[in-house]
């Protein structure tokens, strides 16, 4: 395998959804993040369960409200050539790369960058490979990116 996912923060989709909701709620991000059962009452807020998180993230994708997808980092060990790495670095200020040896690189970015790359017309096979590893770290986003969009 050319790309191997080696690191990401736990619950990163819940973090992004809480960050999104915190913009429109009197309750702060962490209170929303932990509002996972009826035991805790947050005035005016729905329980922050999988359905709620999925709804918020899908809404963010529909609105193009990608900023909230920046609250995370995802790191891969990848075999790539310098042209591919240069392409990634030129695409966003959020790419961090470290060269391990002649062929291998450590690549870190966030969900926002992946979404934008995946939805742009001009992307490399490496982008698809990075997105293809998201099922475990970010299943909701991975599923949304796998679906056809209006932009193709």
């Amino acid at each position, binding site marked *: 395998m050319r790309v*191997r996912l*080696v*690191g*990401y*923060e*736990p*619950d*990163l989709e819940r*973090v992004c959804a*809480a*960050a*999104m909701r*915190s*913009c*429109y*709620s*009197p309750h*702060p*991000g*962490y209170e929303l*993040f932990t509002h996972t059962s009826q035991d805790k009452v947050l005035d005016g807020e729905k329980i922050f369960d999988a359905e709620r998180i999925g709804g918020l993230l899908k809404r963010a994708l529909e609105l193009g409200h990608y*900023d*909230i997808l*920046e*609250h*995370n*980092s995802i*790191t891969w*060990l990848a075999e790539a050539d310098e042209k591919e790495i240069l392409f990634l670095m030129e695409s966003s*200020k*959020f790419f*961090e790369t*470290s060269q*391990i040896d002649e062929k*291998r690189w*450590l690549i*870190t970015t*966030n969900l926002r960058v992946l979404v934008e790359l995946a939805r742009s017309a001009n992307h490399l096979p490496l982008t698809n490979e990075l997105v293809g590893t998201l099922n475990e770290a970010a299943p909701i986003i991975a599923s949304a990116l796998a679906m056809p969009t209006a932009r193709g």
Partner: protein
Amino acid sequence: MASKAILFSYTNYPQLTANLQEAGVKMGTDGMLRHGSFTFDLQGISRAASHQIVRHRIASFSQQSQRYVRVTRSYGYLKPPGIPEDLKVPVEIQGHKLELNFTDVMDLTRQAEEGLAAKGIKAEDARYLRPNAATTNIVMSMSPRQLIHFFNLRCAPDAQWEIRDLAWSMYAAVRLAAPQVFGPLPAADESDYIKKRVSIVDDLVRKGQDGFSGTPPGELFRLELHPMLELVHPVETFVRHY
């Protein structure tokens, strides 16, 4: 009411380095500084402080909206400790001379904003009355490298007191969460003030280590900074344990 700094999401470096070791890659400190992210929920901070925080790059911010969150539901304010509660200043309004303290002025602006909203003025316009002291919540993410830059600037003795208190609180939180990444601040080499406080944070983090390790996964550990690390105003500091 105290401000809060909650470190609730961050790169799991033991896991990351173990995964890399499996692939025969050893990650040094420089690599860890570049490849990771720390996300804080900063609660009850003033707009004056948040304006300073969002100047930092590269970082990500999600801040509570003043348009969508109604004033009556969340409007608090933070009074600078340097302004005495009983200090009054003379003002003149439509020929009426008054003596007002800080709290009185906050009450006036809040009443005026609520009054505008009650008369049908849109929240996006009524909020123009809101002062810098009004509190806000903001979710903020930065890489370790950027955080060190932030700490070097904002932990300095000449930084503004509120953001300096927040920066020290956040520094203590990341020291506890990721000791393999965060050590003494580079700025400590040039400042006795920073050097002394870094040493206090060392002690506090060491004392908190057992309690943090024993915190159930997913729960918050409260890191007690006061009174060892003197802050101008109270900042409750928490780190989520994985």
